[in-house]
């Protein structure tokens, strides 16, 4: 008599080992080919193996869907707000990202074999979302707004604030307290206006040389001077106005620090500028090729990208608070958000319409003053 369950026999172990070894040998090339982007198309009769590429799409807005060539993309979420879509055959692809109540973001980008094209979408609300900043609060801390009649003004009707407020037809303020936030913002708006005016005066003073001899007939406009002295820097990017246009400049010569959309195939290669060069108002490089950084990568990089201004006058610009790849442009008919990425085209979305606006970016807020009212423009629909 002896135990029924015998130890594993050598042949059993060899069989299992051999099977797994065979599985390893056969599957490893498949895994590696798959990982590098090769796909086998069973529908093709001839040469079914294709080298594919992919998209990595950052989509910040909530509740958005991604479409590639009008087909919705599913099961591609890599992180909360990032999608990785692979197995795309090389060629021009149309991406659009849309969601209910949001602007649709659309772009056409090339897919290259074995390469992932990174792109970042943004979707602002179709209807502006604002939070009114009250000038006064009553003794109970409730916001008070003044109105000529008891009907709610348009701005108040679109305000998304959940803070309770009271509408007063009386302008008496003796029983009210002034809101510190309003006072602060009011001061900042005044300060900004006076700084801008001062800069304009200084600029005019520099340009108006009554006893100088000019060989050119060019007259420098106030706007040009004002904006040439207005430079905004964030991380390794700068926004600067040259003439009527605003440009995004790469401040680093290190390719790793430059967003990928600066590096594309079809545009001339320009040497990136250093912050020193930028602020010393040296001549910005525009044409020279930069072969040294081209050694580090297959696609050459540009140093500047022009920001779309819709053929309007630029009244102000800055980086979008939550995203350094977007620019807030204060144009004639409203405040827009424009992406710097100009591959195929730059998406431009209206943040707030209006022609008589003042814009202020304070901390991470976008504030607008219109008709004496100050309000914060909210760039996204609050998630429920």
């Amino acid at each position, binding site marked *: 008599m002896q135990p029924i369950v015998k130890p594993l026999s050598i042949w059993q172990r060899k069989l299992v080992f051999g099977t797994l070894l065979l599985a390893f040998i056969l599957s490893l090339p498949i895994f590696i080919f798959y990982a590098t*982007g090769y796909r086998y198309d069973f529908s093709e009769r001839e040469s079914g193996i294709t080298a594919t590429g992919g998209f990595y799409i950052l989509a910040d807005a909530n509740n958005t869907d991604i479409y590639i060539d009008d087909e919705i993309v599913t099961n591609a979420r890599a992180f909360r707000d990032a999608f*990785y879509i692979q197995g795309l055959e090389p060629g021009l692809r149309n991406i659009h990202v849309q969601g209910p109540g949001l602007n649709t973001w659309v772009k056409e980008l090339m897919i290259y074999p074995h390469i992932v094209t990174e792109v970042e979408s943004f979707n602002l609300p179709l209807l502006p979302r604002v939070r009114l900043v009250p000038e006064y609060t009553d003794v109970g801390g409730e916001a008070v707004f003044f109105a000529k009649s008891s009907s709610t003004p348009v701005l108040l009707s679109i305000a998304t604030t959940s803070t309770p407020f009271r509408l007063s037809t009386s302008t008496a303020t003796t029983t009210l307290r002034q809101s510190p936030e309003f006072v602060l913002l009011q001061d900042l708006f005044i300060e900004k206006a006076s700084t801008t005016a001062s800069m304009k005066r200084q600029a005019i003073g520099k340009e108006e040389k009554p006893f100088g001899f000019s060989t050119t007939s060019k007259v420098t406009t106030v706007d040009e001077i004002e904006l040439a002295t207005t430079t905004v820097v964030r991380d390794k990017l700068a926004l600067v106005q040259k003439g009527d246009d605003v440009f995004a400049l790469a401040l680093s010569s290190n390719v790793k620090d430059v967003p990928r959309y600066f590096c594309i195939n079809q545009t001339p290669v320009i040497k990136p500028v250093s912050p020193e060069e930028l602020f010393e108002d040296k001549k910005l490089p525009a044409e020279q090729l930069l072969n040294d950084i081209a050694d580090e990568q297959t696609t050459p990089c540009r140093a500047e990208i022009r920001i779309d201004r819709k053929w309007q006058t630029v009244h102000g610009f800055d980086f979008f608070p939550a995203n350094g790849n977007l620019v807030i442009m204060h144009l004639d008919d409203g405040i827009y958000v424009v992406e710097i990425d100009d591959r195929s085209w730059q998406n431009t979305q209206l943040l707030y319409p209006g022609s008589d606006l003042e814009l202020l970016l304070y901390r991470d807020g976008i504030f607008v003053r219109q008709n004496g009212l100050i309000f914060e423009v909210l760039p996204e629909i609050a998630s429920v």
Partner: protein
Amino acid sequence: MVENEQLLPYARRPDFHVGRATELKGRRRLFYRCLEIMPGLASWGTLIGVVLLSIYTPFVAAYFVIAFALYWVLKTAFLSYHLRYNWKRLRHHMSLDWQSLIARFTYDHIYHVVILPFYKEPTSVVEASLDALAKVNYDHKNIIIVLAAEERAGESATTTLREMKEKFAGKFGFFLTTVHPMDVPGEAIGKGSNASYAAEQVRVKVLDAHGIRYNHTLVSIFDIDTVLYPDYFNCLIWHFMTAKQPLKSSFQPVPIFNNNIWEAPAVSRVVAMSSTFWEMIQQERPERMATFSSHSVSFKALYEVGYWQTNMVSEDSRIFWNLLIANNGNYDVVPLSYPVSMDANAGSSLWQTLVQIYKQHRRWTYGVENLCYVIYHFTQNKDIPRGKRIKLALQQAEGYWSLVTNPIMLFILGWAPLFLGGQEFHKTVLSYNLPIMVRDLLILAMFGLVVSSIISLTLIPPRPEKASRFRYVVMALQWVMIPATMIIFSAIPGLDAQTRLMFGRYMGFWVTPKVRSV
């Protein structure tokens, strides 16, 4: 009379019991030192190599990582197959009536010497082990207990000896207590010197004194927290009687670290069960086995090699290599597939427990010193078949190398190409697919943990009343900690041990504190 005439010819060599390079001279010393450097160098070289590969050739590194992750999945499947099979066999063995199985043998002439070395462990731990021994289904008059204390442990140890002798002396054939003197020249502090001293004492005072033949004596050396299952000796006798060469075999039970499993923290349970599972896997591939922790061996075999080495740390495995080499490769480990219960690590606090686990595993993984010993003697003893020498050396080397490098490569360095690969690599499909593929393969490998989780639940003792039923859920889910425990309590202590050996900072024996709530 020839000195050491009882020893096998090869065991008479002066370097047979070499513990470290410093005990040798000349070229042999240099060679042994190189062997001590080799494991650490190989492990560090691999880890640094993966980093360098990721920096300079990230594509090659990525292919390597994918291949390695796939290998890991298949290795997990391979090991899980062995584990599951041994679990089946273990349960079958536990259900058998071994007494009826051995009824056909004549075995009443066989004596069991049970050596229980201890240091400062509480009396309750010693008592629990002796209690279990007193309850085994075996003729107690054929059991010789040797309770082996250390002089350096002081009064507490001698008190324990006295108390245990009073309580248990009448329950066994013989009950011998020994006190290993401290500071014996040439000895390292550790279990091996105590056990060897006890073995010699029992030979002189019991075996020789009562005319008990060495080849009729089986020695079981148990850690002091070892609690026997009732049929251990019956199972041992069956295997001894049916072994191809019983006097040239060691008998290895499965150590299950479950004595205090309901009191130990989750991390300790996972580490303890992982060790058990590793031993269970090894039981199904005995050609790769060396003895570990509690095991049994014939006294004759022990006597022929001069007992356990007294000058090193991992004497429990070293004794097997001593026996294999002294017997010119003609020596086996017979897996019993029968459990013995031991303590999981449990300190006075969670931190203390973590420290204890780390130190214990560093001591275990310091078993890499055996690799140097094995390769050294494989180059010296040409009577061992060459094929066997090469195979065993490679198996052992691979084992120590993979113990240290595999978890780190898999769970940490697998991502190195992503961070170190550079711009060219970062924009490729391969760069994006690498983490996805490795993650998916590791998830696939984690299915092996489901097997582990189920098996572990069947190996734990009944739930004490004070423990909530919810603990079962925790015990099932605790296995998600495996990646972390593999790195922190296997790879890193292993690397620590190999690095110490590499730099000649030889380790001493560290006694794992045994604390059990009463």
